[in-house]
C-alpha cells in the first residue's frame, strides 16, 4: 500500500447520461478525495447524484454515458483501465449495494457466489477459497459459515444477506469499499449492527470507505468526513464532528433541521420548500439550491457559486464566508427567531414553512400570508 497521496482522487467529474435520446447531466464537477483507511460519507436526497458517483468510480455507468474529468485510484486513471487492469482494479475496489437480493444470483449457493472471484480472477483453489469464505463470514459475525455456504440467498434474511455481501466484498482484500445505501433497507437495529461491523473491519483492515446514504446523522456518526451533494454537485465537505454544529452550506443546515428529533417533538418541522432537484432540472448558471434557500440573495442567482475552502472543509456557496458560523444546528428549539443571520436551529415554533428573509430573496415563492397560523396558500407551494 503506497502512502503518498490520497487513495482515491476524483477531480472535476461530470457525467451525462442518455435518456430517451436526450443527453442529460447527472453529475457536475464533482471532486472528492479519500485517503487510505479513511471513511467519507456521501449524503444526498433523490437526484443528488450520490449513487451515480459511486457507479462512476466503479465503472458501472450505463452504455452511452459521457464522462469528463478524472478519477484516479492509487495514482492510476480509472477511466483508462481495461481488460486485466480493470479486473485488478475491481479486486482493490469493492462495492456493496442497497438491495443485496438484486445483486446476487438466486439459483446459486452462497458459497459459489462468494468464492467465484477468488477462483476465477485470483486462481485460488476451491478448498482454500471456501476456507477464506468461512473466515470472512466469521468476521462479519456469522459463526456457522460452513452451513451458510451451502445455503441459497432466499434462505437468509435481508440483514444476514447484507452481511454476507460485506464478507464477499472483503474476500479480495480491497483497499476501498464503496457502500451504496447498504443499510437503508434494513431494520434500525440490524443497521446498527452492520455499521458496527463495517467500523470494526475498517479499523482492523485499514479499509477506506465511501459510504453513501440519505441519512445525514448516520453518515456523520460513522464517517471521518462527510460530503453533501445536491443536484449533481458536491455542496459541502466537512469533518463529521463539525457537520451538525458548524455546517458551511445552507443545504446541509436545512437538511439537518428538517429531520425530526428523536429526543423532542416540535410544533412544526422546518421543511425546505420545493423539492430536491436533479442535475438536469437545476438552473445552470446559478446556485442550484438558491430557489429553495432562505439565505439566497442576488449574487446567488447571477453565477455558479465557487468552491470556498473554510476551516479544512469546503462549501459551494456564494455567501459561504458571510454565513460562516451562523448555520449551526443546535437541535430543534421552540424559539421563533427567523432572521437571515442567526442559528438555523430556530425551529418552527409558531412560524410556518420557512419564510423568505427580508432581504429581497429571489427565486423562492413568498408565502401568501404572514406567518401566523397556517395560511392555506403556503401548503400548495410547499411541494415535494
Amino acid at each position: 500500500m503506497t502512502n503518498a497521496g490520497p487513495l482515491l482522487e476524483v477531480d472535476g467529474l461530470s457525467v451525462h447520461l442518455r435518456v430517451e435520446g436526450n443527453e442529460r447531466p447527472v453529475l457536475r464537477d464533482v471532486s472528492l478525495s479519500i485517503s487510505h483507511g479513511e471513511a467519507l460519507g456521501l449524503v444526498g436526497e433523490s437526484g443528488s447524484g450520490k449513487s451515480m458517483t459511486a457507479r462512476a468510480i466503479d465503472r458501472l455507468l450505463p452504455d452511452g454515458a459521457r464522462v469528463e474529468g478524472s478519477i484516479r485510484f492509487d495514482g492510476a486513471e480509472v477511466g483508462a483501465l481495461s481488460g486485466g487492469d480493470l479486473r485488478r482494479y475491481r479486486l482493490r475496489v469493492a462495492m456493496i449495494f442497497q438491495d443485496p437480493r438484486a445483486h446476487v444470483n438466486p439459483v446459486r449457493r452462497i458459497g459459489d457466489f462468494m468464492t467465484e472471484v477468488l477462483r476465477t480472477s485470483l486462481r485460488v483453489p476451491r478448498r482454500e477459497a471456501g476456507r477464506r469464505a468461512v473466515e470472512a463470514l466469521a468476521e462479519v459475525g456469522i459463526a456457522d459459515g460452513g452451513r451458510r455456504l451451502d445455503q441459497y440467498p432466499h434462505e437468509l434474511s435481508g440483514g444476514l444477506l447484507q452481511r454476507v455481501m460485506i464478507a464477499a466484498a472483503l474476500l479480495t482484500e480491497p483497499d476501498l469499499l464503496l457502500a451504496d445505501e447498504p443499510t437503508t433497507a434494513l431494520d434500525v437495529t440490524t443497521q446498527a449492527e452492520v455499521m458496527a461491523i463495517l467500523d470494526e473491519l475498517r479499523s482492523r483492515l485499514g479499509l477506506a470507505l465511501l459510504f453513501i446514504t440519505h441519512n445525514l446523522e448516520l453518515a456523520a456518526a460513522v464517517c471521518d468526513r462527510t460530503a453533501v451533494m445536491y443536484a449533481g454537485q458536491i455542496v459541502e465537505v466537512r469533518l463529521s464532528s463539525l457537520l451538525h454544529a458548524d455546517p458551511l452550506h445552507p443545504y446541509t443546515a436545512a437538511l439537518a433541521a428538517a429531520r425530526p428529533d428523536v429526543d423532542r417533538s416540535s410544533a412544526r418541522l422546518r421543511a425546505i420548500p420545493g423539492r430536491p432537484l436533479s442535475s438536469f432540472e437545476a438552473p445552470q448558471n446559478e446556485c442550484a439550491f438558491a430557489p429553495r434557500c432562505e439565505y439566497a440573495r442576488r449574487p446567488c442567482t447571477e453565477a455558479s457559486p465557487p468552491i470556498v475552502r473554510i476551516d479544512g472543509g469546503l462549501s459551494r456557496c456564494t455567501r459561504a464566508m458571510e454565513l460562516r458560523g451562523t448555520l449551526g444546528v443546535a437541535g430543534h428549539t421552540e424559539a421563533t427567531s427567523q432572521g437571515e443571520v442567526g442559528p438555523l436551529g430556530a425551529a418552527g415554533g409558531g412560524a410556518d414553512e420557512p419564510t423568505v428573509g427580508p432581504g429581497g430573496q429571489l427565486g423562492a415563492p413568498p408565502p401568501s400570508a404572514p406567518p401566523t397560523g397556517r395560511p392555506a396558500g403556503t401548503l400548495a407551494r410547499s411541494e415535494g
Partner: protein
Amino acid sequence: MSQVALDPTPRADPAEEQILEVSSLVKRFGDLVAVDDVSFRLARARSMAIVGESGSGKTTVAKMIVGLERPTSGTIVACGRDRSRPARSTALRRARGREAQIVFQDPYTSLDPRQTVERTLDEVIRLHHQPDAADRRERVRTLTELVGLDARQARALPRDLSGGQRQRVAIARALAAEPRVLILDEAVAALDVSIQAQVLNLLADIREETGVSYVLISHDLAVVRQISEDTIVMREGKVVERGPTAQVLDAPQDPYTRLLRESVPRPGWRPVRRLSGAGTRTTGSGGPPPSPAGHASTNPATSGGDR
C-alpha cells in the same frame, strides 16, 4: 419478563370517544403467530404509533384494522361498530371505509397509473358522498388544496408526479372518505428527508383541521416522536411496551425498546456490535433473546438481531 403496563390505556378517559378499540388481537399464518394478543385503544383526534421492525406484526395489525386481513381471534371495534369479521357485503365494506382508511408506504404503486389525480379522488367521492357533479368538483378541489396540490398537479397522471406528490394524493384519497381514523403504514418512509418534513407538517395540519385520529406504523423513532402522542412497541407479534411517546422514548423499560432507542443514529453515536466478531459466542441466526444484560445506558442488551 419486561414490565409492560397492564392497563392498555393508562390515560383512558371514559368520557373521551374511543374511535378504535383493539382487544386481544391474534393472527396466525399456519404455524407462525404474526400478531399475538395485541390490545390498544385510540381516542378521537389522538395520534398513536405502533413501533416495530420487520417481523413485528405491525403491518399485519394495520391490515386487520382496515379489513385486508382477517383476524384469527380477538376484536376490533371502530366508531363503536365491530369489524372483527370481514365485511360480507360491498355496502358494509364501504361503510367501514368511512370509518378507517389507510395510506401505504410505496408512492409508486399506491395510485392507479391510468387515472389522473382528479379522477382518482372523484371516484372515491362518488362512492361515498355527493352524486352531484358540481359538488364533487368542489370537494376534489378542497381535498387537493388540503394536501397542498395545485390545479395543474390535480390534472396530472401519477407518472408525472414525484414520490412526495403521490403520497399527498394517497392521503387525499384516504381523506376523501372522511374517515375517523387514518392508518399511516410507513407512509413517509420512502420519502426524501426534506419532503418527509413537509408531509409530516401536512399531517399535523390535517389532524388539527379535521380532527381525524392517526395510527402511525413506523420503525423511525424520530418520526414517531414528532407525530404521535402514545406509542406501543411490538416485537415478534407481541406488545412489549406502551405509554406516552415521550415516556417510551426517553425512559424505555423494555430491553428491546432500549435497544431500538440506542440504535438511532445521531451526532455522537457510535454503533456497537452486539454479536461478536471472529466466531465466539453468537447464534447469528436468532434464537430466543437471552435475558437483558442489565446495563442501564450504553450497552444494548445482547440478542439475536436478525435471522
